[in-house]
């Protein structure tokens, strides 16, 4: 299980490749991998967005991300999980978040992956500030899941 913040651009597919190699997940045990990648769009609420800043609460963010993944592991029979979340300056098309969950069967993998991203969006202390043609603005709330 790994939870990580990144202050520069990352490639979710490359990270999954590294993690697959490094991971302690026993080969042959997992039948299901559910993955979610959140990517920065170049528009939000009908406005063009050219840049985004992701602020966080150092310490509290990591603690809550770890707790969310641990809660998922208590709720479902997971073999492993990986969460990577960007902080800092982002451009459109930059990955924001990667959530990957390994389990023997798909029901647990899908449910846990969905749970982690919903809980992350509801509880992990991150804040987005978008640069638009009308100037910078803080995103007021997340879209419902």
């Amino acid at each position, binding site marked *: 299980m790994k939870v990580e913040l990144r202050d520069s651009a990352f490639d979710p597919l490359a990270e999954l490749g590294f993690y697959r190699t490094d991971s302690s997940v026993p080969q042959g045990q997992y039948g299901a991998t559910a993955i979610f990648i959140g990517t920065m769009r170049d528009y939000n609420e009908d406005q063009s967005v050219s840049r985004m800043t992701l602020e966080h*609460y150092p310490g509290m963010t990591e603690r809550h991300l770890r707790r969310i993944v641990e809660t998922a592991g208590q709720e479902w029979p997971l073999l492993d999980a990986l969460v990577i979340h960007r902080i800092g300056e982002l451009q459109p098309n930059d990955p924001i978040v990667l959530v990957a969950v390994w389990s023997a069967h798909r029901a647990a993998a899908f449910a846990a992956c969905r749970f982690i991203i919903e809980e992350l969006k*509801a*509880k992990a202390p*991150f804040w*987005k*500030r978008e640069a638009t043609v009308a100037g910078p603005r*803080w995103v*007021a709330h997340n879209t419902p899941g």
Partner: protein
Amino acid sequence: MTICIKYFASLRDRIGRAEDRLDTPGELTVAAVWAALWPETPLPPNTLAAVNMEYASLEQIVCDGDEVAFFPPVTGG
């Protein structure tokens, strides 16, 4: 007792600083911490609070050395 206060995101921008320190003789609630620092500014609606990096209600009691944070709804992911 001494309490460390942090502000994040749009709330920090609005009030113009990221941290405060409050020295106070006795126990306070989270709401009272805000009121002591910003007597003329009601806590903006939807503001969330944390004590020592755990979400907290406005009624929670704050102890000496605690870190209290105020911030708007989170928008990660």
